[in-house]
């Protein structure tokens, strides 16, 4: 990827540097020089337009983040000014504390979300690695049919599973019981056929000779999987881990159905609730709400900036959010 990018950079038809003041022709004729000068001016204009376009888009993309940040430190009075201020006059850091001490109980929500995220990520990694290995390396009857059948289930929209799984977890009496709600949050969407597929493709790229050589040496499958396959496939595994964690952080529909009580409530569900309705003012305390939104958004942005490569890899292949 990196290599490819730099290759393309080198070969890009026009670079801004080329658009800079024209170098003196190497003993060429005056006409040619004039023409190339004209062309270079034209190129410069094209680049100015291009950068202007990209900058405008970048501002539109960034503006909601900026507005969220400055709104989160405003006082209610300043937030409601006739002409909104683009930089807070006073910084009210208390808004952030309110997210933890107020009705939202953000600390508890973070804890719940981290528990669900970590447990489901670890379990799903184990299950995914084992089954991807079986599909990639082991021989058994009906392998191809089973794999095709699993892939076929990917066509079905998740909403269909949500409806019946809601019936199922209720029939198991999971909703309403303490341990049951954890199970309901973690188990139903634990195994992703797409991740099995992704990892299987990755495993298949590892030469089979390696496996046979290990077999000849009497290595067990588990040892081979642990020592050879997992290290070689680690970029994919990291991608899966991050996307899975992000999924737990962002999930709303399913947790909102099965776990609404505070002991199991996840971040997004709590955020959408009425936690910031101020009884005295008879309206929502918007700066405090924005502060909570900041606290939920920032961890994701930090993770993205640290693991950009892995997120981009995973996303470009899946098109699935979370």
């Amino acid at each position: 990827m990196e290599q490819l990018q730099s290759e393309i950079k080198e070969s890009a038809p026009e670079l801004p540097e080329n658009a800079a003041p024209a170098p003196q022709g190497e003993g060429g004729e005056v006409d040619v020089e004039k023409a190339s000068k004209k062309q270079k001016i034209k190129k410069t204009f094209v680049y100015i337009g291009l950068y202007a376009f990209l900058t405008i888009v970048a501002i539109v993309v960034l503006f909601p983040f900026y507005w969220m940040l400055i709104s989160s430190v405003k006082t209610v009075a300043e937030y409601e000014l006739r002409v909104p201020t683009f930089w807070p006059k006073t910084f009210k850091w208390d808004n952030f504390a309110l997210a933890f001490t107020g009705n939202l109980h953000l600390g508890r929500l973070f804890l719940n979300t981290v528990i669900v995220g970590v447990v489901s990520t670890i379990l799903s990694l184990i299950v995914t690695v084992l089954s991807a290995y079986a599909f990639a390396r082991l021989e058994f009857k009906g392998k191809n049919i089973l794999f095709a059948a699993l892939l076929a289930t990917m066509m079905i929209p998740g909403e269909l599973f949500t409806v019946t799984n809601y019936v199922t977890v209720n029939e198991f009496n999971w909703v309403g019981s303490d341990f049951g709600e954890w199970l309901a949050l973690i188990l139903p969407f634990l195994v992703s056929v797409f991740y099995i597929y992704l990892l299987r493709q990755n495993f298949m790229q590892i030469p089979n000779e390696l496996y046979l050589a290990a077999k000849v040496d009497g290595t067990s499958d588990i040892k081979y999987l642990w020592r050879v396959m997992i290290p070689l496939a680690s970029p994919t595994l990291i991608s899966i881990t991050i996307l899975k964690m992000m999924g737990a952080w962002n999930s709303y529909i399913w947790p909102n159905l099965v776990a609404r009580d505070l002991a199991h409530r996840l971040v997004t569900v709590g955020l959408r609730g009425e936690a910031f309705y101020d009884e005295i003012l008879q309206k929502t305390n918007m700066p405090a709400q924005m502060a909570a939104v900041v606290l939920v958004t920032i961890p994701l942005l930090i993770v993205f900036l640290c693991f950009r490569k892995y997120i981009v890899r995973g996303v470009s292949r899946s098109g699935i959010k979370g």
Partner: protein
Amino acid sequence: MDEEKILTESTSEESAPAQESPEGAPGGKKKFSERLKKAGRWLGHSQLKAWLYLLPALVILAIFTVYPIINTVRISMLEDYSFLKEKGGTEFLVNFNNFTNVVHYRGFLTCMGNTMLLTVITVPVSTMLALLIAVGLNSIKWLKKVFQTIFFLPYVTNAIAIGMVFKAMFEIIGPVNSPSSVGIINTIVEAFGGSAVNWVNEGSSYWANMAVLIFFIVWNALPFKILVLLGGLQNVNKQYYDAAKVDGTSRFRIFWRITVPLLSPMIAYVVITGFIGGFKEYTSIIGIFDESLMGPPGSIGKPLNTMVGYIYGTINNNQGRASAAALILFAVIFVVTMINLYVSKKRVHY
């Protein structure tokens, strides 16, 4: 490079203890064939072993993926099925009334219309915009990484959290008649000589709501499309461009005659996934609007409801109807995807 390193490392590591084993008779060749036999036996065992490896995945998939498919079909044919009633011992009539009830429900046309409208507008707009941005990014060098990072940011956000920010930006603060502030977007609109619009508050018009939704959905959909299209552009053979340059082809012509055809598989991919995502639109609406109203405050009859919104609106009390609606959604997505594939087969150059 890495692979080779690990390869040599692992083989040397594994073979070391084997050499020390007491079995190691001086006749190296004989030993090797014995080992091969042993390996063969191992492979024979793999029948059972494979199923053991698959067991955890298959158990979970059987309960939460395969069974639901069968169960959805079953309960969609039980009239007004709900698990609460079933626990109470109610017997359900077996018929197709859930399906006809979904279709005859007055709000269903609204849901269908909203879903179609949002999809038909946001997919082309976001694809075109993403294409322009990707082409732009591909022809610059300075600040390219910075722009790429910025454009990807909306992807790593929580649709509900950012939806709340969008609401705050478009909202009129205070009572609509005598607002204390018209909000930041309206302030910008006024700065450019327009007049303030009631975007999302009580009494706001359908089209104002839709405009906000379309803006938000496009904002949210851009990163993935830019990522895929830019990836495609970087794989385009640059010789085509060199040839066009020699011929003195205009940029506009290069874009339509070279870039778009060569990118057509990627464009087809983002359009198809865009359509599928569009038909499932739901969280962006509840990020901005109230979940129980599916519209601005004070609205009746869920004016902005979508098909997925319909499913989740009935899921608590009537899972029979919700299942029927989910199956209808599946059918619609299936048909639309087939049409997309058919069209792209004719248009896409591979």
